[in-house]
């Protein structure tokens, strides 16, 4: 028997989360003075609205009992992401930079979920303040709204554990400290240091400070918003591209591995199978595409080879870590390459990183399980438990992993169907759906690296917004809200 959902507590938590968004907006308002731009004003208005509604939520939720269950956890996390996007879209909308609210919402949720799919036809006409907010949404969403909140404001007390679990529902335990707020602080520190290091290196590589910061935000969050219409291709600098490749890979690694690195527990990193397979898959596919890109009918030069290698590696890394930066129009490549790109979009990088997708760990466990199934066919009574990183994987974990992979594929297939029905072309449907579900950004065809999502019908945009949220919160947290059991008393 279920108890009634603690609505008051949910309101209070959402209220305090909204206050933190209001503070972030206020920060952008002050930054607009640095850029000497006038549209900081819109952020001040939005911030005021957020403060008011946030306070109202806290007021309505006062005297709430502290009882926090799994259902409240799922509800708070899902609604937090929706509310953040609803209000985060306001500056774009009221400044008329993006005249349609549908588009503004799409752009913002694409930011918070670190997808990086855009509806803007000319990014460069936006002001610095707007561009900064766009990148900043990705940076907040990358580590997770709740995690950042837990790290900076120790307000949720013990219910933090529930929220953390609902937002980061990986198959392995990622707690690196007994206290959830301490875990969040350490993760945030790693996140911050990575961003800081990349900013410095990009500045050295020739970007100005503004672009360096914005691109670091979106690389470490594996988001993929650029401040330039041509994305990273704008700079045409191998150094910048290699730096970004490096940091995309770093952002695709489970953050707890860095912590073990700090603690001198290198054995843990070495025996982490996910890390190993992540690199193996990444480089194998990069090499395959690299070979397919070399044109052997022409004389081969080092310059050309390096160029192909860079294109292949950058694209695979960008899509596998679900970042979505582009330096080349991969729609010009052979169609088999598109399939490979779709595969890496689906697999994604590591659990516990900022990347989306199914995550390598689930792929590894599923494959092992299938492989052992063959063994069981031959030796029906053999005991062949699935081992991962030297540990036995519990059966309920395997079930959860298999259910996740299955559900992911089901959502993908039916999502493609719905997109097609809503009037999107076949190849675009596949590309856009998988890209949004895995929080990548560019898809295939018209929504590919050279195109954008602007031309899609209104319904498709709302549907894809929902898909992005689904992918970012790893399906179950959001989908459980749509089950009758969740609401039944």
């Amino acid at each position: 028997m279920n108890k009634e959902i603690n609505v008051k507590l949910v309101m209070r938590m959402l209220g305090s989360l909204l206050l933190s968004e209001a503070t972030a907006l206020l920060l952008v308002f002050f930054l607009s003075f640095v850029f000497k731009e006038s549209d900081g004003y819109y952020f001040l208005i939005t911030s005021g609205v957020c403060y008011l509604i946030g306070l109202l939520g806290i007021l309505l939720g006062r005297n709430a009992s502290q009882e926090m269950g799994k259902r409240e956890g799922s509800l708070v996390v899902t609604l937090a992401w929706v509310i953040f996007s609803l209000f985060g879209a306001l500056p774009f909308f009221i400044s008329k930079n993006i005249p349609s609210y549908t588009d503004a919402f799409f752009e913002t949720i694409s930011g918070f979920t670190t997808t990086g799919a855009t509806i803007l036809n000319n990014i460069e006409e936006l002001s610095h303040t707007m561009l900064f907010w766009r990148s900043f949404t990705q940076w907040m969403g990358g580590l997770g709204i709740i995690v950042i909140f837990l790290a900076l404001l120790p307000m949720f007390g013990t219910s933090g554990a529930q929220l953390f679990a609902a937002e980061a529902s990986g198959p392995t335990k990622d707690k690196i400290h007994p206290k959830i707020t301490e875990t969040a602080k350490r993760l945030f520190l790693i996140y911050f240091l990575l961003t800081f290091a990349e900013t410095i290196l990009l500045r050295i590589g020739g970007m100005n400070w503004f672009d360096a910061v914005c691109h670091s935000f979106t690389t470490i969050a594996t988001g993929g918003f650029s401040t330039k219409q041509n994305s990273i291709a704008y700079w045409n600098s191998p150094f910048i591209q290699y730096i970004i490749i490096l940091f995309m890979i770093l952002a695709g690694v489970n953050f707890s591995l860095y912590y073990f690195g700090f603690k001198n527990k290198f054995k843990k990193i070495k025996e982490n199978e996910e890390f190993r397979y992540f690199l193996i898959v990444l480089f194998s596919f990069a090499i395959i595409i690299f070979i397919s890109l070399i044109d052997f009918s022409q004389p081969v030069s080092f310059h050309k080879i390096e160029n192909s290698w860079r294109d292949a590696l950058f694209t695979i890394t960008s899509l596998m870590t679900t970042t979505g930066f582009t330096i080349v129009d991969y729609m010009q490549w052979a169609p088999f390459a598109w399939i490979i790109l779709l595969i890496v979009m689906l697999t994604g990088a590591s659990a516990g990183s900022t990347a989306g997708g199914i995550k390598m760990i689930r792929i590894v466990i599923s494959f092992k399980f299938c492989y052992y199934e063959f063994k069981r066919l031959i030796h029906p009574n053999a005991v062949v438990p699935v081992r991962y990183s030297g540990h036995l994987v519990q059966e309920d974990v395997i079930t959860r992993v298999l259910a996740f992979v299955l559900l992911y594929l089901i959502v993908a297939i039916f999502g493609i169907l719905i997109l097609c029905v809503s009037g999107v072309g076949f190849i675009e449907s596949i590309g856009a759906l998988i890209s949004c579900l895995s929080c990548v950004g560019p898809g295939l065809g018209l929504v590919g690296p050279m195109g954008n999502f602007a031309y899609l019908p209104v319904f498709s945009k709302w549907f894809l917004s929902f898909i992005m949220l689904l992918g970012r919160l790893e399906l179950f947290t959001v989908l459980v809200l749509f089950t009758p059991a969740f609401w039944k008393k």
Partner: protein
Amino acid sequence: MKIIIVGAGEVGTHLAKLLARENMEITLLDENPERLKDLDLNYDLLTYEGSPTSINNLKEIGVENADLFIGVTPYESVNMTACMIATNLGAVKTLARINNYEYLLPQNKEFFKKLGVDYLIYPEVLAANEIVESLKTSWLRQNMSFCNNALILLGIKVRSNAVIINKKFSTGFFDHNRYRVVAIKRGSQTIIPKGSDEILANDIVYFITTPENLEFVKEQAGKEDFPIRNVMFMGGSRIAQKTLFNLPSHIHAKVLERDKEKSLLLANKFPNALIINADARNIDIIKQEGIEEADAFVAATSNSEANILACLVAKQFGVKKTIAEVENLDYISLAESLDIGAVINKKMIAASYIYQITLHANVLNVRNLTAADAEVVEFVAKPTSKITRSKIKDLKLPENVNIGGIVRNGIGSIVNGDTIIKPDDHVIVFCISSSIRKIEPFFN
């Protein structure tokens, strides 16, 4: 404070959840992943699958930085070994759960300290002590004494014949010089009384008073004293054995034990008690063995359900006092509403004992009130601490906390709003669980 708990059994898990609610870093280690399942998702703690006695595993969870290491697996030797390893790896304090009464003897304390085990806990003995206490005075649910009996805390179930019921506290009917009502347990609710509250029939009322006013409280609560001479025990569990061991000599005990071998063993151990090899759930047998003449019935088998039911049966036969050992925490309020008398839970008793170790202030005693989900704490007021600075009514004490009495120079007295606490007073504070830490700063 970093605390490592090994053994995710009932005591370990209960303790971990209790401490995780506060600002403590809890790591819970167990060999069996089943027992750790989902704990770290729902509570603010870290679980770790590993052996309690593996040096490697203990290092892995950072035992060298632990302020407190708690060994509460069911196995005494595992707990002892784990504590010794932990101490030598750098844990500050260690505590082991044991099953051997010999270890608890005061002269062995230093010996174990040398070995690296600072505290020993024997939950069954703690539970048995509580049973013995409650058998000594028949009309009390709970009876605790503080500072060599200078103050006592009484838990009494008041019936409709009590004079204090249906009177608001603001009417001034209550003689606050002679006793003080610190809490009322009604249904599943624990109430810290204010002026507008009143006592109703069937409430359990907690009084703080001095021993000389015991009779007065008895009158006020409408209770009658009846001597307990015959006690019937269901099952010869470890708790029952420890109770028999400490029972005053004027009480005759009858033990019904199902197992033949165990019955023999008991008969050998306790020549003064009558051991009957029979199942106490068989009504004919307990009738035959004179349940109607028994003054008290103690059900302390490992089966909570059987204990509750057996006590209900005993009540029907007119046994005035029944005591049930209820391990399942969810059953406690149920048992309470069934009116089966005192409820003992060794887990909670053990947990509040361990909890005491984690407190910083000068805490002498933390005692658990099973039925009320509350604790009674004995603090010592330090000089210049906040509590000594003003009258109690001006202190702005946290909610769910009630100061009951103080002991000054060995003499107990009841407090009222105008009392000023002096340094080195022993203060008896009643608080709903998990509020202890809020009151702690007042005494530092």
